[in-house]
């Protein structure tokens, strides 16, 4: 399972419109796409000293699928000229259902993309418009068909649940419709409303309410049970895969503390023990690269303790858990372990502390137990 080669992330910071729940950086100024692409090349070149070979490439956003076939192909071609990708490297692109055409998929395939992550979110039109999505549920179903017909054998579907106006039964309906396609990977995100999103503003204005804890917990457990009985592994708090070979290898690098390089505005990079992140705005990003400078927004060098804390916080979110050798030296380890086991929150299996399903629900609290 060990995959020490780093991952490459490219942030396509453009969207035709902004979704109500999304807190990621993106711009709707599509006229800047060519400037951004030019700058991206500069940035890739500037980083080719520290990074050389990657095991995964993940093109996310934003909305990568709004790039034209030609631009997309040239971008990947350039990345391949600067960096080396291992044979069998996982190459993912995030796509929106309404951008999908057989031609686009064909071109993705030709550039070497072997994994599609489709932003379905919901299969209920009323809910889709509440979320601020551009597409309708029919677009998503059609996209799934087209992707399948284009011969992609590693497809991920992103879904959101646990928000106002979505009943338990409508969520289960969405899930079972998706299960008819048996995608290799499903991400199910419980809605959490971030302050800097449109929903965040609506909550503070009293226009919408957050879904109660009890209902969210019930939906979370149901989701895990439904997908597990359909053959999926619940390998991370919000991620399910149809067997070990279909976990998101790129995202797993983040969770396993493997190095990664992020290109594009607001992207984060990690080269142990240093982490840095780019400026958020497309304008600043292009301007700095135009001046021949790295578009650095900030950076930090992690102490051994911080690295260890991160690997605990990340490990407690995945089925791989945390090596107990790392935890033994923490204060009151025995007592904490005893209470975790008694509370059915985690268990020790093969020398690792692995969170249970209930443990996943407390993924933000559990690491705190080990902090001093």
């Amino acid at each position, binding site marked *: 399972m060990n995959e020490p080669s780093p991952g490459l*992330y490219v942030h396509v910071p453009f969207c035709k419109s902004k979704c109500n729940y999304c807190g990621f950086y993106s711009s709707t100024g599509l006229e800047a796409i060519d400037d951004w692409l030019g700058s991206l090349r500069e940035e890739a070149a500037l980083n080719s000293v520290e990074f050389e070979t990657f095991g995964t490439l993940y093109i996310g956003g934003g909305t990568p699928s709004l790039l034209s076939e030609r631009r997309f192909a040239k971008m990947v071609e350039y990345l391949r000229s600067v960096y080396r990708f291992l044979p069998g490297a996982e190459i993912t692109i995030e796509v929106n259902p309404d951008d999908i055409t057989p031609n686009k998929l064909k071109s993705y395939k030709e550039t070497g993309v072997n994994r599609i992550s489709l932003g379905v979110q919901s299969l209920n039109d009323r809910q889709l418009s509440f979320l601020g999505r551009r597409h309708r549920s029919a677009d998503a179903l059609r996209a799934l068909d087209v992707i399948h017909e284009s011969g992609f054998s590693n497809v991920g579907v992103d879904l959101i649940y646990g928000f106002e106006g979505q009943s338990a039964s409508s969520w289960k309906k969405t899930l079972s419709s998706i299960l008819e396609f048996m995608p290799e990977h499903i991400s199910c*995100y419980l809605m*959490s409303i971030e302050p800097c999103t449109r929903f965040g503003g609506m909550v503070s204005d009293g226009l919408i309410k957050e879904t109660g804890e009890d209902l969210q917990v019930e939906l979370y457990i149901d989701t895990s049970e439904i997908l597990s009985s359909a053959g999926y592994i619940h390998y991370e708090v919000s991620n399910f895969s149809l067997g070990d070979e279909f976990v998101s290898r790129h995202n797993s690098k*983040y969770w396993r503390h493997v190095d990664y390089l992020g290109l594009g505005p607001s992207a984060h990079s990690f080269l142990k023990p240093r*982490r840095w992140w780019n400026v958020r705005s497309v304008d600043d990003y292009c301007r700095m690269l135009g001046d021949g400078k790295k578009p650095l927004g900030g950076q930090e060098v992690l102490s051994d303790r911080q690295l260890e804390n991160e690997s605990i916080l990340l490990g407690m*979110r995945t089925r791989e858990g945390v090596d107990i050798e790392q935890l033994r030296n923490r204060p009151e380890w025995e007592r904490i372990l005893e209470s975790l086991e008694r509370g059915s929150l985690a268990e020790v299996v093969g020398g690792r502390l692995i969170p249970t399903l209930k443990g996943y629900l407390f993924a933000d*609290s559990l690491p*705190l137990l080990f*902090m001093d």
Partner: protein
Amino acid sequence: MKHVRNFSIVAHIDHGKSTLADRLIQHAGLVSERDFHDQLLDNMDIERERGITIKSQTVCLPYKSKSGIDYMLDLIDTPGHVDFSYEVSRALASCEGVLLLIDAAQGVEAQTHANLYAALEQDLTIVPVINKIDLPTANIDLTKKQMELELGLDPDDAILCSAKEGEGIEDILEAIVHRIPPPGGDPDKPLTALIFDAQYDPFRGAVISCRLFDGSVKAGDSVRLISTDTVYAVEELGIFQMNREKRKSLSAGDVGYLIAGIKTVSDTRIGDTIVMADDSTAIPLPGFKDVKPVVFSSIYPIDRDDNASLADALERYRLNDAALVFQRDSSVALGHGFRCGFLGLLHLEIFQERLEREFGQSIIMTSPSVRYTFELKSGETITIDNPEFYPDPTTIEQSMEPYIRANILIPERYMGPVMKLCLDRRGVNPHFSYPTRGRIEVIVELPLAEVIYDFYDRLKTITQGYGSFDYELIEDRKSDLVKLDLLVNGERVDALSTIVFKDRSRARAVQICERLKEEIPRQMFKIAIQGAIGGRIIARSTITARRKDVTAKCYGGDITRKRKLLEKQARGKKRMKMVGQVMIPQSAFVSVLKTKDE
């Protein structure tokens, strides 16, 4: 012949005392424009933030009057709270007059009265000053009318001023010179000086602030402090400007400082009299009291390993706070700590804040207690200030608790709610008088335990800030007392125990359980909170378990944000105390005595 005037400024809170003091200092040219900042006399951050004076300061202002004579005007600043009323009375005893400051927009308020009476008690000359006349809401005529009707002062005596704009400052300085009498006293008589404050200097030890009534003193003299009967050689003396100004001698009428190799301020007593060492017949100045702590609380380091550093911090703290007493203490729930005694609750709160801020200590403080006395069947009498030492109830013949006589001054319209508050707090023997039209003075006897936490806060809320409150301890009285224990998930938390009045024990237990329910954050499991007397459960509340704590998304490589959040939470956790499996925040321990706003 020296031209000296000794005065103080008294005012209701926010009527502009610090601003006026700043203005007078500026006028005297003691600070440059560059060094000027607001609240010059309040050195501590906490004084500036809270807008109160904790430690009084003295400053001598040189002033050339309009008639061309050079004066030295000693401004003696006073702390502004009931806990320190004794210190205030000693500071006033060192003056011949006060500036009574009244806000032109707010008019006469509770503390205006209280301050006026305190000054009249010392027979001081009152110079009324109407401040903030620049405000659009200023109503000078009405303020003058109030002065006449409520305070019995001649409105024509009032000086109009705006300390903020610097208006009327000359008039005030002239009035200090002409209206406040010069200090009397005879420099040739034997030395008598009043200690009204002491500050700690890390290099010199205690720096005594004193007022000389008779005689004179110079460096090298041997002096005796009457109450402690200790003799010291005077090393240095002088007057206060913004810093200490060394002088050769001080004599009758002067206000100044004295350094005499006294190690800490706890070796001095405010209100004590300084005389010459060989003067065995000297009579102490009137009004001295040995101030004793009345409120007790235990403090524990949050991290058990920090005990030594806490002990060291307390030693250093005491150097500058003579009123603080402490001794070692320990708790099953909280480990080793210290039992501390305070003059009152503000004193306690200031202590807690300064200890954390200036001394970097993270502490847990238990709910404050008074000192109880138990007469046992064996004939023995025991006194405890910590509920932990509550004796076996079957051995108690009778229990006693301290009572105070409270003096509450309020506008008439608040009479009903204030009486209700007093009765709720077991007040007895109320007496009323009408010092001026529209105002009532309520004198009522209350158990000290009922006022130590939030009585003053409640009074201020009920009277919208118009109520003033002062008290004196009177005696211990018989009272039926029981110990109320608190259990968290079945485990008794000794630091949460309190001694309560038996007839109200159930109501208190319910109240405390509800309080703790609010203070203790929900955790991964259910938490039961129980109140018990002698093993019998009399109240209960339940904190439901959290059902989830998870952020769905954690990718995009932004792990830094997540780790920083975790680190922040981990720091927050340090301020919690684990009792069994339950994390109890610091605030919960003191919250026990707080009552809810009705």
